[in-house]
């Protein structure tokens, strides 16, 4: 019987009336690797942030080594020997490896504040060699590969005598060889009795290194299984198993001519040989997990990062898209995933935002035409039911749903042939979601081709005619709406389909 390291019971958490965690359970034994799985937005990272003292829970108990604890700050979690390796690494690139390992805990000569460099080097050496790493502690961190930097983070955790280590998608940016090295390290930490929580979307990794798996869905606890007693299919079912209701008002539209054809699109290291097409009136969903290359594909089509290879044809005209203006001229519009950083001028008015990609249409000889600008803004505000005090209200003060409608509006005003929507309903309430779906129908009926990127499977299956699934920069699944099941999509999205093929 191994010792119980951590027990999280009935953890709940809400952000401004939205319940993101609802009575979640999780526990961890010493020397165990316990996988935490679920779709994007299932609440995994919120749960881990509570464990690390970044967020405080609303209710529930956390027991660490038999004692009930309240982690109110990351340093309290650190004192309890809990550490987390984030997806984005937290090392300071201009400092050496040993400076990073002992940041804020430098060895000094007594209380003089003078740094004992020799001891620091010795100690860093010791922890690095415990992990079987041959990294010189005096190397600048920026000179290391991502995999090596991750190892340094683990060495740092080790130097703090960490007993509970959270690994958030640690393999996302690693090469195969680095992954093998990481798994060796994980195995050696197991022997030392460190308990590890492993978050990953890669099914095969779970079966390779984890002892147990806990699945979450929509902020709720679904179940915990021993990996040796379960199967990929069962886990997938646990991850997606929910009913699709008539939240999705998809209507059937007769398709017209081919609006977009993509052949052999390749972006080095990101996208590999992508082929697909979309016809007028058709809504194609692009499914997959975070980092699968969906947003990259959208950005290639829109000229943000031009493709290295491949042919893009819009309305049977081959186009060469190297920057956004060329994509816009070709009739493509992209509603970006991140509306605050890439979509909107937050301090500016609704009308200013809608005019931005349409400046030629709302001006004469370079002078703004107030009448045309007002007319265009008015039209979009009406069509999209944008709720604002006036066209002059700043976009930053609107609700998330209305902000999203402004982004869609500014692109709709360009009269696109192909509309790419990247996570169009993220952070949007249910009412506004429905309105966005209705709008998609309306546009499809007008003959617009729509490519919708979405991480929400119900949305993918509810609102599309066809579904493309991506995994690691490749299209690994292609289903019609009738063929698709959540299990099939999830299987393809976690590389399952790929594995069968090879």
């Amino acid at each position, binding site marked *: 019987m191994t010792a119980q390291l951590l027990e999280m019971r009935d953890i709940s958490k809400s952000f401004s009336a939205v319940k993101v965690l609802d009575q979640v359970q999780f526990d961890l034994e010493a020397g165990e690797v316990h996988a935490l799985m679920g779709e994007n937005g299932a609440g995994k990272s919120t749960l881990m942030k509570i464990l690390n003292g970044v967020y405080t829970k609303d209710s529930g108990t956390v027991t660490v080594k038999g004692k009930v604890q309240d982690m109110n700050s990351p340093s309290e979690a650190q004192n309890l020997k809990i550490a987390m390796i984030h997806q984005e690494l937290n090392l300071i690139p201009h400092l050496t490896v040993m400076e990073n390992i002992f940041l804020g805990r430098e060895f000094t000569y007594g209380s003089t504040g003078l740094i004992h460099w020799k001891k620091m080097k010795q100690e860093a050496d010791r922890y690095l060699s415990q992990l079987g790493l041959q990294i010189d502690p005096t190397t600048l961190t920026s000179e290391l590969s991502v995999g090596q930097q991750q190892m340094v983070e683990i060495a740092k955790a080790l130097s703090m005598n960490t007993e509970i280590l959270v690994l958030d998608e640690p393999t996302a940016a690693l090469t195969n060889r680095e992954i093998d090295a990481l798994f060796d390290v994980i195995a050696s930490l197991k022997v030392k009795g460190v308990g590890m929580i492993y978050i990953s979307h890669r099914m095969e990794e779970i079966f390779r290194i984890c002892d147990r798996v806990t699945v979450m869905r929509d902020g709720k606890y679904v179940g915990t299984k021993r990996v040796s007693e379960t199967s990929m299919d069962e886990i997938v079912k646990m991850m997606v198993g929910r009913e699709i209701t008539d939240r999705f008002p998809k209507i059937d539209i007769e398709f017209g001519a081919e609006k977009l054809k993509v052949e052999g699109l390749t972006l080095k290291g990101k996208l590999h040989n992508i082929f697909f097409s979309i016809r007028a009136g058709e809504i194609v969903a692009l499914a997959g997990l975070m980092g699968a290359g969906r947003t990259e594909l959208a950005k290639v089509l829109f000229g943000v990062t031009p493709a290295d290879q491949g042919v893009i044809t819009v309305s049977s005209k081959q186009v060469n898209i190297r920057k956004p203006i060329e994509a816009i001229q070709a009739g493509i519009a992209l509603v970006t995933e991140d509306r605050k950083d890439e979509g909107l*001028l937050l301090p500016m008015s609704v009308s200013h935002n809608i005019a931005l990609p349409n400046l030629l249409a709302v001006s004469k000889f370079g002078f703004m035409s107030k009448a045309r600008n007002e007319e265009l803004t008015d039209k979009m505000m009406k069509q999209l039911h944008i709720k604002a005090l006036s066209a002059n209200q700043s976009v930053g003060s609107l609700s998330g749903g209305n902000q999203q409608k402004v982004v869609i509006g500014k692109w709709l005003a360009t009269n696109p042939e192909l509309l790419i929507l990247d996570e169009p309903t993220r952070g949007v309430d249910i009412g506004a979601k429905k309105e966005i779906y209705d709008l998609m129908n309306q546009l499809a009926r007008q003959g617009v081709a729509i490519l919708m990127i979405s991480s929400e499977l119900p949305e993918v299956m509810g609102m599309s005619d066809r579904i493309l699934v991506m995994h690691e920069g490749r299209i690994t699944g292609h289903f019609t709406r009738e063929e698709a099941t959540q299990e099939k999509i999830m299987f393809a999205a976690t590389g399952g389909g790929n594995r069968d093929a090879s």
Partner: protein
Amino acid sequence: MQAEVKANHKMKFVKFQSLGTLVGLLLLFIVLSFASDNFLTVNNLLNVFRQISINAFIAFGMTFVILTGGIDLSVGSILALSSAVTAGLMAGGMDTWLSVLIGLITGGLMGALNGVLIAKGRLAPFIVTLGTMTVFRGLTLVYTDGKPITGLNDNFAIFGKGYFLQIPMPIIWMVVAFAVLYIILKHTTFGRRVYAIGSNEEATWLSGISTTKVKIFVYSISGLLAAMSGMILTSRLDSAQPTAGTAYEMDAIASVVLGGTSLSGGRGWIVGTLIGAIIIGVLNNGLNLLNVSSFYQQVVKGIVILIAVLLDRSKKSN
């Protein structure tokens, strides 16, 4: 709904703030009128505004630059080099208007060079213009051999010394420039692009706007206006000084900030800059009239700027 009400309140507050600068200026006027008999006379005021025009031109250009989120430290050196070029050509016997035109183009080109380095080279505006500030100043010293250039044409007086309906020409030029630039910022697509870049450069680029072109143009405007300021200064002094315009960027930046334009870009207006430039001009003049030593004048000016920035900050956090 509550958020919307709050937003409305916020908008009113912003308007009130621009009003605040104006109220500050009025207070300054009232205090100085009482403190000095010489302040509120037509002669003194015309004189003040003539002085203000030199800074105002530079500050107008600086407004464009700062609205895009940039900064231009090289304006003083651009002023010096373009006025040296114009003066040199005139002294060499060239026609007044042609020499002025060439001087202004020189200024615009120096600004364009800043813009190209910043936009195409993706370098920080502070560093680029710090570098070109030194380069242009050095070129001025080379061109003038460190000596003033004199022997300018008589009709060059129209820039700095002449009068129109008893109003000094520099003030006329300033009002014309202000009107044109106001219209550009407020009523043209170019103006929209300037604000958009300062507000969110990424989103602007993704909206199909060539942020590179807009930035190059903005720095060219700044260079052109610095050159224009140089023409007025040279005409008033009847000579081009190799050290003219030294540290002029400071008053220009201060005017823009006093006028409520945010140093991070996207927010502000040129009317505020005009008010800011007037405040600085009136402050200089008033302190002179009150016989405050020029050493203390600097202290006072600095404090006024700091207070304005603090007000700007509290406005943002509200």
